[in-house]
């Protein structure tokens, strides 16, 4: 196949992945301010989109190894060609859309890693995966991230409720705007960069760009706008799960959760122990639910989210592997993989229309969640 067409396909899929990354992760920053009424839904996603756009332009550093060292490259492993990147992207996109359809806040980065791992395994076998790096960079942090966030948010919530009185707590809504904005900005500087790295790698691999050079301006601009557009589209299903599905959130809880998410993400990026934003944000919501007396955490929903995290890498890896098997058959297989991916995306989109969730019906209870009226106490005789 003409390298130009192949690279164009990779760029198109990478930008679409960036778009899904944006709308998948809007909830990390904006679910709690929307849930407490600190921001109107459309205002919240517009603010998040602008901050993601700004963040993406500010971040000029490109991850040299998009797989973060998970896939052994060079002598001991394989060189990731555009075909395998394409297969990995298909795995990441399809899994991101499946989790969106289910309203599960799963990590887009893990979906991307999973897709690339699956494609690389088909390319060169299981020996290509560095198990030690997989455990230390993904599996163990996936347990530590929510535990850290739960603890921090639990204590922060306890502090907020012990210091303030009920009539003062609406004031937390103003604070939420600042903390959620910081999460959005941090997201823009980190996540758009991954797609820039994927596109730059594909351009270098196909010989359209010199090795060792950074992303072209048009790549930065395209990725920035793709993630901002995705963020503005709003992953309302995930926003509903994070904002209302795990626990009912009051303004003081929202502020405590966002402060915990911001502090944990900033500490992890600055101190060299990377934690997933999605897992930290979900953990903070659970922690704040535990921290307020009288609040309850819906463990069934939290369990579903946990299972989603566990299967993200194997599932996106399996889809990436199937795509890689097709791609290896030649140009016909590559076209078949792309056509099947487009059909899967369309199918998921059409399925989503059967139970549409957007900013207008965000506050309706999820199907199957019953509102139990309070029992009336019998009058004392």
């Amino acid at each position, binding site marked *: 196949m003409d390298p130009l067409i192949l690279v164009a396909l990779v760029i198109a899929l990478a930008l679409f992945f960036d778009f899904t990354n944006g709308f998948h992760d809007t909830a990390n920053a904006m679910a709690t301010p929307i849930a407490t009424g600190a921001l109107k839904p459309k205002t919240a996603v517009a603010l998040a989109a602008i901050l993601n756009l700004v963040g993406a332009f500010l971040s000029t550093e490109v991850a040299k190894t998009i797989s973060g060292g998970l896939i052994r490259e060079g002598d001991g492993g394989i060189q990731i060609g555009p075909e395998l990147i394409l297969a990995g992207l298909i795995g990441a996109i399809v899994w991101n859309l499946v989790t969106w359809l289910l309203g599960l806040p799963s990590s887009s980065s893990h979906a991307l890693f999973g897709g690339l791992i699956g494609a690389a395994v088909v390319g060169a076998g299981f020996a290509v995966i560095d198990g030690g790096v997989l455990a230390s960079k993904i599996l163990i942090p996936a347990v530590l991230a929510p535990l850290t966030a739960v603890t921090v948010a639990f204590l922060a919530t306890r502090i907020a409720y012990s210091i303030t009185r009920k009539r003062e707590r609406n004031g937390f809504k103003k604070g939420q705007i600042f903390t959620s904005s910081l999460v959005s900005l941090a997201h823009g500087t980190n996540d758009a960069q991954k797609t820039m790295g994927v596109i730059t790698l594909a351009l270098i691999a196909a010989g359209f760009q010199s090795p060792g050079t950074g992303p072209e301006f048009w790549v930065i601009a395209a990725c920035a706008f793709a993630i901002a557009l995705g963020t503005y589209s709003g992953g309302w299903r995930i926003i509903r799960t994070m904002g209302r599905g795990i626990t009912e959130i009051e303004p003081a809880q929202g502020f*405590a959760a966002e402060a915990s998410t911001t502090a944990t993400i900033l500490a992890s990026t600055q101190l060299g122990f990377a934690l997933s934003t999605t897992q930290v944000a979900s953990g903070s919501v659970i922690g704040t639910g535990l921290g307020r007396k009288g609040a309850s955490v819906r463990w069934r929903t939290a369990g579903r989210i946990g299972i989603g995290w566990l299967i993200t890498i194997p599932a996106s890896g399996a889809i990436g592997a199937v795509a890689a098997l097709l791609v290896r058959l030649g140009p016909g297989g590559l076209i078949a993989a792309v056509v099947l991916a487009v059909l899967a995306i369309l199918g998921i989109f059409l399925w989503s229309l059967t139970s549409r969730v957007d900013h207008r019906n965000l506050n309706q209870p999820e199907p199957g969640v019953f509102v139990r009226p309070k029992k009336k106490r019998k009058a004392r005789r």
Partner: protein
Amino acid sequence: MIDWVAFLTVFVASLVAACLAVTLFSLGLRIADGEAAWRRPVSILMFALCAVAVLIGLYLIVGDHLLELVGL
């Protein structure tokens, strides 16, 4: 494998930073709720300290990138 010292540092830093920001903001709200003359300036001081924490966060996110963009 896992750099436990780095993780513990992240854990403690997150805990201290989040609890400090929440404490300052909560104190700002609590102190503002009253009639005494001293309450308003002290409440503003609490919010200002909290704003400093937000600015530090902002600097940690964009500071290096901005310095790089202006060529410093």
